[in-house]
């Protein structure tokens, strides 16, 4: 692999990790709320969170551009207050893949929390644990393998994300050009076949490692109970 191809791999990994870090707190809180409580508008929230799973990624990218773009309602505020601009930036690639991967992560975490007997929290409380400690030490600890699976799914989805990224963050080499975008670009170049093939192999290997890791977590989820 050439140094520029390694850079592409490194950028993709960075975007993937940031995407997981960005989604995780939201997915944990939402997953816990959806798993443990009934509240008005619950199915609406659930539906909205799952929307990116079924929307064409290009549409997701377009919506992101409208909301988080320079002239978008949120994007303009972010730019004027924090000086952050997301569109056509690697941070935009992170946001795009985080949104697209969010339903996968949320689903895994929610199911993991649902599988933990809520009465265990009560048991921990009677033994002297504060509510926060009972949630962290018992519920989230028991759901940890599922949370891990959620992270891997989100990471894997980020590695494969194309449509929303190209629409929202564009295809800028060294900035927003992640693996799939680079493969697409190389395929469109007359002499890019070799580079494309190498990146395809890297993609396959990375995805395979992710699947193995998630299977491993899945089996630890079963033996724990």
């Amino acid at each position: 692999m050439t140094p520029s191809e390694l850079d592409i791999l490194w950028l993709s990994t960075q975007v993937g990790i940031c995407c997981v870090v960005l989604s995780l707190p939201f997915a944990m809180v939402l997953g816990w709320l959806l798993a443990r409580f009934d509240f008005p508008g619950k199915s609406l929230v659930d539906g909205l969170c799952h929307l990116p799973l079924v929307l064409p990624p290009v549409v997701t990218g377009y919506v992101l551009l409208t909301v988080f773009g320079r002239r978008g309602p949120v994007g303009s505020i972010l730019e004027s207050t924090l000086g952050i601009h997301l569109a056509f930036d690697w941070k935009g690639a992170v946001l795009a893949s985080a949104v697209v991967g969010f339903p996968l992560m949320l689903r895994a975490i929610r199911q993991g929390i649902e599988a933990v007997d809520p009465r265990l929290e009560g048991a921990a409380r009677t033994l002297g644990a504060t509510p926060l400690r009972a949630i962290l030490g018992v519920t989230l600890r028991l759901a940890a393998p599922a949370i891990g699976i959620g992270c891997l799914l989100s990471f894997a989805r980020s590695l494969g994300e194309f449509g929303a990224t190209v629409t929202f963050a564009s295809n800028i080499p060294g900035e927003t050009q992640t693996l799939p975008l680079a493969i697409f670009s190389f395929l469109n170049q007359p002499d890019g076949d070799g580079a494309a093939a190498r990146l395809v192999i890297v993609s396959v290997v990375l995805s395979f490692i992710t699947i193995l890791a998630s299977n491993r977590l899945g089996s630890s989820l079963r033996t724990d109970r």
Partner: protein
Amino acid sequence: MLSIDLSKRFGDFELEVSVTCPYPVTAIFGPSGSGKTSLLNLIAGLVRPDCGRVLLDDRTLVDVSLKEFVPPEERRVGYVFQDALLFPHLTVQGNLSFADGLRKRESRISFDQIVTLLELSPLLDRLPGRLSGGEKQRVALGRALVSSPDLLLLDEPLSSLDIGLQSRILPYLRHVRDSLKIPMIYVSHSVAEILQLTGQVIILKEGKVLASGDFFDLASKPDVLPLLGDFGFENVLKVDVVENRPAEGVSLVDYRGQGLKIPHADLTVGGSLFLGIRANDVILAHSQPEGLSIRNSLQGIVADIQDVNGMKMVSVDVGKRLLVEVTSEAVHELGLSRGQTVYCLIKAHSIRVT
């Protein structure tokens, strides 16, 4: 003493309880759906009452009118759940020491003392998934004790175990009662189980207290007896072991001066144990019979006769009350009446050693 005076609505079901639970052990008895577990959850603070209060000795645990609510982690009320609810990701050791570091004061009972008392040392490294039902309940009991509670709540801790295991766990509970002196509220729908721990009972039905006080005083009440009958009432007698006779296949025990033969078990002579005798396994005779294969007869005086679900429940005073279920026809033919001397005949093999 624990005093409860509260109400709580759960959908269509309303729990309304005003009662005091004396120490050391009060049993809450009632059919399923009578609100027993809900009441424990209210005492533990896992559920908030709609109105009313719960006082433990001089401490207020909850008082709705004063807007006081002590959260469960500050109540010092231990809870042994029906299905143990051990933390599946922690070993027995981890489960037992979960309360360590969460407790705000020195434990009155040391960890080692609990491990010894409940014979948990061989289990310490195991995960709950690898424990039997009886072992799980022992660990759950130990885990609650490590938190050094002022009161221990037990929610049908034996109901998931078979009879043999139940009788192996009960001695541990008696140990807790006698050597650790922790007051207990014991929920069960088995009279036999309750009577091995206490005579003080609260009877719940459809969310209300039907009666409370000494079991044998309550048992003769016409509205209480049918409840007991529903479960196939089992008498419990505390007896002393006199002699083992393996050759005859029996052991001799003494019940308040009257001898009984029970199926042979290698018992400690001089020790005491509990016998379970079902009300419908006892035969009544107005004189000491001859020419019968039945060897056991307890002499007593008829104290009361009640109608229960079309049968007659005869309460015979044999030192304590023994309830005997017979048909109305039998009562009529024997001419049974209060104050009459009768003999209660019991087959050795219908006696359950618990």
